[in-house]
């Protein structure tokens, strides 16, 4: 009885795996047949995916998809954006409703191994940070001993704060709230000195306060939240496309290639740039694309630095510092293997 059940289950699992592997192989072909890339994005997150006044999607996560579309179709507009809530996102990817999930999703082991998806890189290194009033004159989170911290109860945010203060042998007074808006309101009303949440959120939150200039986000980051795009597990070629398109953008920044000077750079003598832009070698073949895949991606959204500044950095209203997201050559964590 038990063994028959087990055999049955095994057969079903095999069938499911076989079916998903067979159909997954064809993601690139499927995308080409549809004539557009279907990209799952956040329903609305400042700087990452948000519609502007005209309803066009903008943001860092959105631009990643545009770059992939440009690499495949030579046209960054060939993307259909599907706004997804946090709960829907994994099903949407598994069921084939979307081809890429680019929705500020944290890369964790359980997601990468058992949720049927593979992450292809880190487009934004996020982590929990602190916001304080400028008038306190603080420079680092290490000076926060004795501070009162407004935090939402029952979240990892709360646990991270507790760990951080214990680890650094500092005291703090938690002021806990049930909901995020209440937490922010309390901070705004001066009921605590510190407001804490993921750094990317802190910058957005700061803008909603009466006078953003009165508040400052401390440079310390106390948790790891690497955000990146993910694809369905089992289609190595498709994963490679998404991975290398992003690497191309990071490499472009390192080599000084921008959307503006790309044509000029392509004529230059630097072999690394020539390989990146498809003037030398056949690197597109390995991922099933044309030789100019890198050129198209960079031309459409700019290099990683441009993309960052435009959406979340100095060129945007959020004004997030590069911090961990700077290139490795500038002391950050963004590092891409070479195109060779």
């Amino acid at each position, binding site marked *: 009885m038990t063994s028959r059940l087990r055999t049955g289950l095994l057969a079903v699992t095999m069938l499911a795996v076989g079916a998903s592997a067979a159909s997954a192989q064809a993601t690139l072909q499927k995308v080409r047949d549809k004539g557009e890339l279907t990209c799952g994005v956040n329903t609305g997150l400042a700087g990452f995916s948000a519609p502007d006044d005209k309803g066009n999607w903008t943001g860092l996560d959105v631009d990643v998809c545009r770059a992939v579309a440009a690499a495949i179709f030579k046209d960054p507009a060939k993307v259909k954006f599907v706004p997804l809530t946090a*709960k829907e996102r994994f099903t949407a990817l598994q069921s084939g409703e979307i081809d890429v999930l680019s929705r500020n999703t944290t890369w964790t082991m359980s997601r990468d191994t058992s949720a049927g998806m593979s992450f292809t890189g880190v487009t934004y290194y996020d982590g929990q940070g602190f916001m304080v009033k400028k008038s306190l004159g603080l420079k680092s989170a290490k000076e926060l001993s004795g501070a009162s911290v407004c935090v939402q109860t029952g979240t990892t945010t709360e646990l991270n704060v507790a760990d951080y203060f214990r680890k650094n042998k500092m005291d703090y007074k938690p002021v806990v709230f049930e909901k995020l808006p209440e937490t922010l309101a309390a901070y705004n009303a001066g009921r605590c000195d510190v407001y804490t949440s993921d750094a990317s959120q802190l910058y957005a939150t700061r803008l*909603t306060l009466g*006078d953003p200039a009165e508040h400052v986000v401390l440079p310390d980051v106390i948790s790891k939240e690497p955000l990146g795009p993910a694809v369905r597990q089992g289609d190595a070629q498709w994963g490679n496309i998404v991975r290398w398109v992003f690497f191309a953008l990071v490499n472009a920044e390192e080599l000084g290639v921008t959307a503006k000077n790309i044509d000029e750079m392509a004529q230059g003598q630097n072999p690394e740039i020539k390989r990146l832009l498809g003037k030398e070698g056949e690197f597109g073949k390995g991922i099933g694309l044309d030789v100019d895949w890198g050129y198209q991606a960079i031309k459409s959204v700019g290099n990683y630095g441009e993309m960052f500044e435009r959406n979340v950095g100095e060129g945007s209203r959020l004004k997030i510092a590069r911090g961990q997201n700077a290139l490795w050559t500038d002391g950050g964590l963004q590092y891409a293997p070479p195109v060779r």
Partner: protein
Amino acid sequence: MSTNTNVAEQEVRRPPAGAGPVAWLHKNLFSSIPNTILTFVGLWISYKLIAGVVDWAIIRAVFTGSDGDACKVPDVGACWPFITHKFDLFIYGRYPEAEIWRANLTFLLGAIGLAGLMIPAVPGKPAFAVFTLLVYPIIAYYLLTGGIFGMPIVATERWGGLLVTLVVAVVGIVASFPIAILLALGRRSKLPIVRYSSIGFIEFVRGVPLITMLFMASVMLPLFLPEGVTFDKLLRALIGVALFSGAYLAEVIRGGLQAIPRGQIEAGDALGLSYPQKMGLIVLPQALKLVIPGIVNSFIALFKDTSLVLIIGLFDLLGIVQQSISSDPKWFSPSTPTTGYVFAGFIFWIFCFGMSRYSQMIERRLSAGDKR
């Protein structure tokens, strides 16, 4: 004895009724000391409310500006440029700008059809009924989605705002009504299979919240379908909403059916009418008239429930306002959220209030016979 005298005296002393505004004021607002106090308290509250609204919406409000910074002045009221800049987004969602005329035409045709059907003075009711209930849905479908006569296809992902609210509400209302009548009749049927399946359906749907149904449709359903087979998110929501409100409405209508005395059906039997004739000519017209308030109540609830499609990533009016408030850094300011929510609330109120007034008018017209 003495009481009688008093009454007589009072009647003599009472001023002639209904003569001029002063008498009206005296009779309705200042007839006794407690009433006078109540009147003043009422006036004071109204004044505070109106003054507050005017102060917020006009006096302290910001009317011009190209981003949220314009609204970052101390003690600011409403931030109207947020609404004016995003008006198209709030009404049509991300519908392509060049194709907005199609959404407008759909609105216009719908308004004409409804007006023809709903305003008693307009002639040609049967023609309007055929147009609104049969022709219009087809026209609206092709106008909004496109794909024929050279109109480019507009995927439902691009629909949003008031357009989605109205599509969900109108399809929900129109589709749930026949479902509800069938379920209500089915529940009172003598055929056990029909009866028990109706009861089963109604009780199941009433037993789960709408949010659960939407969630099932959007998260669970794709897992059961073969990979690559997806069907439209909006369609999933529409089916969920129609079935849900159909089940609720069925119980409202059953209430009306039960209020019709058995004698009426027996009279129908005596005349040799068939079941559809008895129901269509005798029972339903009376039953539906009785439950108009309940039906409209359901419709208004349905209209407001459309906001729940937010949780499956569709943007109705409230959803898109909320999205703009929370995710567009260009418009971040302390007064943006209030302004956005007040705007959305006001639009919802206009529609719901309109429905409620219309139902009262219909009730008065239909009950004219009872008052004779």
